[in-house]
């Protein structure tokens, strides 16, 4: 039975507010202390998880390709299959902070495949590999791509620094909307780069993807593997934080709708215990 000392106002509205922003439903009901507890506890836990997981623990779907190739590089005519992320079933109860995943899911589904045309100039840091027919050299640095050419400034693992202009014949870019801060890039029939006699003909690697195109977007297992390689168990802990934050808000939503489960809290200890069978009969 609901305690008459609590003014629930519109319980349905309070529950909706509590879902959207943890603690907002209680604030609406005038239960300010609990609003503060729920907001600070749940939102802090959620964002702690996001920071620990490099802002990537929340995604509503995992994507798969039929031929086990990278989802990011699939052509538009071969859309990936997707599967609901069970963890998102808990994360979604964090409310507004987790809802962008549903918008990003729709953008991902409508986003088409990889691109073989350079839509706009690329000016980004670069991590990747330069290849010719017999050799592959990892490089990191900065790349600019425009038209049918560009510039690459980088360093090899043995410390050799190079810089120069290049031209290419064909380009392949990863899909625009995808759950990774890095966007795949592949240039073929490359010419113009010379690293101590090594003249690569292909460039494969990644450049920056804009925040709005990767935040809370579905990703494939290759990206999840990359996250685990980078963050190890820290990514799992980050996911657990965001899951538990959502589940805690589920209880907070119910508290806004129906009040505290055990009562107001000022009942005598005897009130908490089950009545004896004789008492129940007397009732």
């Amino acid at each position, binding site marked *: 039975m609901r305690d008459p000392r609590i003014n629930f106002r519109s319980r349905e509205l309070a529950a909706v507010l509590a879902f959207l922003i943890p603690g907002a439903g209680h604030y609406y009901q005038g239960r300010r202390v609990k609003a503060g507890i729920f907001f600070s506890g749940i939102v802090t836990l959620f964002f702690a998880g996001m920071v620990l997981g490099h802002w990537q623990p929340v995604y509503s779907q995992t994507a798969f390709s039929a031929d086990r190739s990278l989802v990011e590089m699939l052509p538009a005519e071969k859309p990936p299959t997707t599967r609901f992320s069970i963890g998102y079933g808990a994360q979604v109860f964090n409310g507004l902070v987790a809802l962008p995943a549903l918008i990003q899911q729709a953008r991902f589904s409508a986003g088409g495949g990889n691109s073989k045309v350079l839509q706009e100039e690329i000016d980004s840091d670069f991590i990747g590999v330069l290849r010719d027919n017999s050799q592959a050299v990892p490089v990191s640095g900065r790349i600019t791509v425009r038209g049918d050419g560009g510039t690459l400034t980088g360093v090899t693992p043995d410390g050799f620094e190079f810089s120069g202009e290049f031209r290419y014949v064909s380009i392949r870019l990863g899909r625009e909307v995808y759950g990774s801060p890095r966007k795949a890039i592949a240039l073929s029939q490359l010419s113009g780069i010379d690293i101590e006699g090594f003249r690569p003909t292909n460039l494969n690697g990644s450049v920056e993807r804009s925040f709005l195109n990767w935040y809370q977007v579905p990703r494939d297992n290759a990206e999840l593997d990359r996250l685990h390689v980078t963050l190890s168990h820290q990514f799992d802990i980050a996911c657990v934080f965001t899951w538990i934050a959502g589940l805690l808000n589920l209880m907070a939503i119910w508290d806004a709708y129906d009040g505290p489960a055990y009562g107001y*809290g000022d009942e005598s200890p005897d009130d908490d215990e089950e009545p004896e069978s004789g008492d129940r009969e007397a009732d």
Partner: protein
Amino acid sequence: MNVPSLVYAIPLAAVISVVYTSTRFELTSRIIERSAIMFAKTVVGLVALYALLAWLSA
């Protein structure tokens, strides 16, 4: 900085204790009292479990 994974259990247990207890009671003093007890029990349980696992794997 390499933080031991178990350290993350402490703030997690604290938040779970406070939020869970807040959904059980309305009175602030009761929430504080019960959540402190729940947090202490959780930490003691985790330490005991960790000690048991450390002993078994020694």
